[in-house]
């Protein structure tokens, strides 16, 4: 097949060309044995499903190329990896709080009383072939899943891809982020080790703190007082059925909307608000993205082989009387840990009721953050009055206010996130723990406005530089002297990116195609 690349007239090229009706090409192609088998299967299916027009349009669907469009793909592929490895883990994990005495091959814990959940996780790690590698791939893929969602969202935010008509897909994406965080937390809480058990106790206490109905919520979730014996099996149902089910549904909706609305693209020669320029789904895009799936999977496998993650056997089983110093949650919970640390102990007592201080940093704050992020498309529409369709993306510098606001938000998030490890920072840099807390409080208040101002200034300067290059060209380093003795640097026109004329794909309507081809 490869020889055809030098022979544009070869049969397998024709179907991709707008001018040639696909039917004679198929007939020619099936002269080979494989082609005949494929054509036969295709015909059999088509006679029953009638999918040929849809298939043709799908194969010809155009996807714009840009490295930043791969970030969402990383999220999708890590989710697929999570489903694959997670299914394997369910074969061996026992979601039970029944206490057993451990007799497995990890010597330091032999003879210890622990829940079956913890014992079976030890079993997966030490006595199931490929159990540890699957567990570690699962955990690394979970970290990557949330991280790639966040970076993908930043791409969408800073390039304005969330604007009309894509506001709904932005909201679905925010929902996916929240669910991914909950799913990750549920997942690393299941083994019932000392670290995750401490996290669950904190989760119970945060739930309990919610005004009016908090104690009932916690009571219903855990089936009674902490820890109870119901929660691990309930959490397991949530982790392997409920949230993954919603994730699959929302991801499907996210992708369906993406396909229906067509992808955004950066401005460039030949790219307009009314077209899409890029690779066709088949073969270019599907081969690239398929290959990329394997690279993401390979990266997770390499991380899982080389870097130990969540070594639950070092933490020991959960016991309410014990805790390990410097205990850190998975990275995506860090900002809540930080906000919980920074909040002063301001308790409200009213009419015989208590509003614990933890409500503000752990319930209200994440609620406000998610509402701000989810509602941003409408906030921007309100502020700019722009209700037009936008399929061409912005360069972040061209929208200095949005870019600066986003950077300020990230500064706020990072301040909280860093404060989630302030005890670790204090011990690494030998500074007082209390000083890191005060520093964190100052950062949370002052870093967002400072970041906003600095980012806006940078955007405006970059704009000015773009303008200068556009109008005067690039500096060459050659200095010329004019007859009257003035020195000036010679500017050359900016080099234009090399660009091939895109070839249009088959129109959606077959009649249109035949009329256009002139045959």
């Amino acid at each position, binding site marked *: 097949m490869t020889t055809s690349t030098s022979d544009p007239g070869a049969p397998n090229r024709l179907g991709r060309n707008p001018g040639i009706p696909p039917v004679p090409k198929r007939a020619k192609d099936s002269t080979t044995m494989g082609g005949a088998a494929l054509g036969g299967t295709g015909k059999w299916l088509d006679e029953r499903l009638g999918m040929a027009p849809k298939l043709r349009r799908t194969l010809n669907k155009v996807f714009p190329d840009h490295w930043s469009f791969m970030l969402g793909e990383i999220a999708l592929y890590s989710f697929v990896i999570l489903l694959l490895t997670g299914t394997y883990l369910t074969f061996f994990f026992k979601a039970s709080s029944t206490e057993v005495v451990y007799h497995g091959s990890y010597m330091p814990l032999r003879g210890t009383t622990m829940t079956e959940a913890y014992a079976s996780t030890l079993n997966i790690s030490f006595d199931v072939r490929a159990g*540890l590698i699957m567990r570690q791939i699962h955990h690394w893929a979970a970290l990557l899943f949330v991280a790639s969602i966040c970076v993908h969202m930043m791409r969408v935010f800073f390039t304005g891809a969330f604007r009309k*008509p894509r506001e709904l897909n932005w909201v679905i994406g925010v929902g996916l982020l929240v669910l991914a965080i909950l799913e990750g937390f549920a997942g690393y809480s299941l083994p019932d080790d000392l670290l995750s058990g401490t996290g669950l106790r904190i989760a119970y206490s945060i739930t309990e703190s919610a005004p009016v109905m908090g104690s009932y919520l916690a009571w219903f979730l855990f089936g009674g007082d902490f820890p109870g014996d119901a929660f691990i099996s309930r959490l397991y149902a949530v982790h392997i059925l409920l949230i993954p089910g919603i994730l699959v549904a929302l991801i499907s909706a996210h992708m369906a909307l993406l396909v229906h609305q067509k992808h955004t693209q*950066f401005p460039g020669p030949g790219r307009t608000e009314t077209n899409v320029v890029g690779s*066709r789904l088949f073969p270019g895009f599907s081969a690239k993205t398929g290959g990329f799936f394997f690279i993401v999977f*390979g990266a997770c496998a390499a991380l899982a082989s080389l870097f130990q993650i969540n070594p639950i056997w070092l933490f020991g089983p959960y016991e309410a009387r014990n805790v390990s110093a410097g205990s850190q949650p998975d990275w995506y919970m860090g900002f809540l840990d930080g906000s919980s640390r920074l909040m002063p102990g301001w308790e409200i007592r009213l009419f015989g009721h208590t*509003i614990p201080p*933890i409500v503000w940093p752990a319930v209200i704050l994440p609620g406000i953050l998610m509402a701000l992020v989810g509602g941003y498309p409408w906030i921007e529409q309100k502020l700019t009055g722009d209700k037009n369709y936008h399929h061409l993306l912005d360069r972040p510098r061209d929208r200095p206010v949005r870019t600066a606001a986003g950077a300020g938000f990230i500064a706020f998030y990072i301040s909280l996130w860093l404060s989630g490890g302030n005890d670790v920072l204090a011990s690494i840099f030998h500074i007082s723990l209390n000083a890191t807390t005060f520093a964190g409080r100052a950062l949370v208040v002052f870093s967002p406005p400072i970041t906003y101002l600095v980012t806006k200034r940078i955007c405006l300067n970059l704009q000015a530089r773009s303008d200068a290059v556009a109008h005067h060209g690039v500096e060459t380093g050659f200095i010329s002297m004019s007859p009257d003795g003035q020195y000036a640097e010679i500017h050359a026109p900016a080099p234009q990116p090399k660009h091939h004329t895109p070839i249009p794909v088959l129109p959606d309507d077959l009649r249109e195609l035949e009329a256009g081809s002139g045959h």
Partner: protein
Amino acid sequence: MSDTDDSTGGTIGERLGVPSLERAAVAPTAEHVGPVHRSHADAGNPLSGGDERDPEPDEAKAKRDERVVATLFTLSGAAAIFFVAYYWVANLHDRWYNQILGLSLAVSLFLIGIAAIYWVKTLMNDEEAVQERHPLYDQRENEVAGEVFMAGVADSAFLKRPLLRRTFIASQVPLLLAPVVLLRSLAPTQPKKAFEHTHWKPGDRLFDAQKFQPLQLLDPTKGVTLDIGGFVTVLPESAITYEQTTDTEGNVIDSVPRVDPQVEADSVTMLLRLDPNDFDPNNHRTDYRYVVQGHVAYSKLCTHLGCPVSLYEQQTHKLLCPCHQSQFLVTEGARPVFGPAARSLPQLPIMVDEEGFFRCVKDFDQPVGPGYWERT
């Protein structure tokens, strides 16, 4: 750009006899490109992409590329075979089992991925294609769909027959409430009372939670005693049981201590011994009736989020919670002096019996652990 195409005989479409369609559709002239953005003119704009591949690679190079891709696929297959073989053959407990197994999988996956992308980049043309967007919204379509929907509503008589409509809605409300009511089964009891009490009962001896021995004031041979500045985590003796394994003759051959997690979760307490002079005389939080020769007991559950307050700094008499760094001053009734906690650690009333054993006088006089709505 079109000059380049002409020099190699025009685009593929043109050579196949369809010049007009694509020229009209995509020639990047000003009127087709639409509004010129600032970034168009920007040198080296990273966002504008652009495909720099040679459109007509020669056959020798294609052969070389084919061999590269084929080699990558072969190596990937070999790594996968190694993975499967190693899974079967190697000893699960080998030092490097996980690393070798995982890396062989990683190599196999990586090579497939790299091969696929190399294939696209060298052997497929993967020309840039252009596709028109179709308007998402069409006013006429929208109106027709609305009319069809309203015709359906009229046909259903939903609006015309209010009795039908009202009974339908009235029947749905209780039916939708049913699953909410079913959630009541998640917890059969009420939370408020349970939060107000722990498992400490009057007369319970204080047991060291690590050594599983009672706390003693007088005689170190009968239990655990504390020096000044010392502290120990204690549990009510009812929390500790022993799981005994017996041989065929009924002799105990093994005895594993077990801590009831439900008791531990609310009753875990710290017993500290201070120099009696260290207590701040001005503080009214400490109940001196229950301080025995400098021994004082506080709930170990942080009033912030319920973590065990595990770190004790003797010099400053501060207890530190490692979760969120709340600090409690034990010389002043364990009041919070720094960090996010709002309330003091409750003090457990303790006494010493005639044999020198520490015993609980009564349960805490307030709820332990974090705050909640019903708490006064």
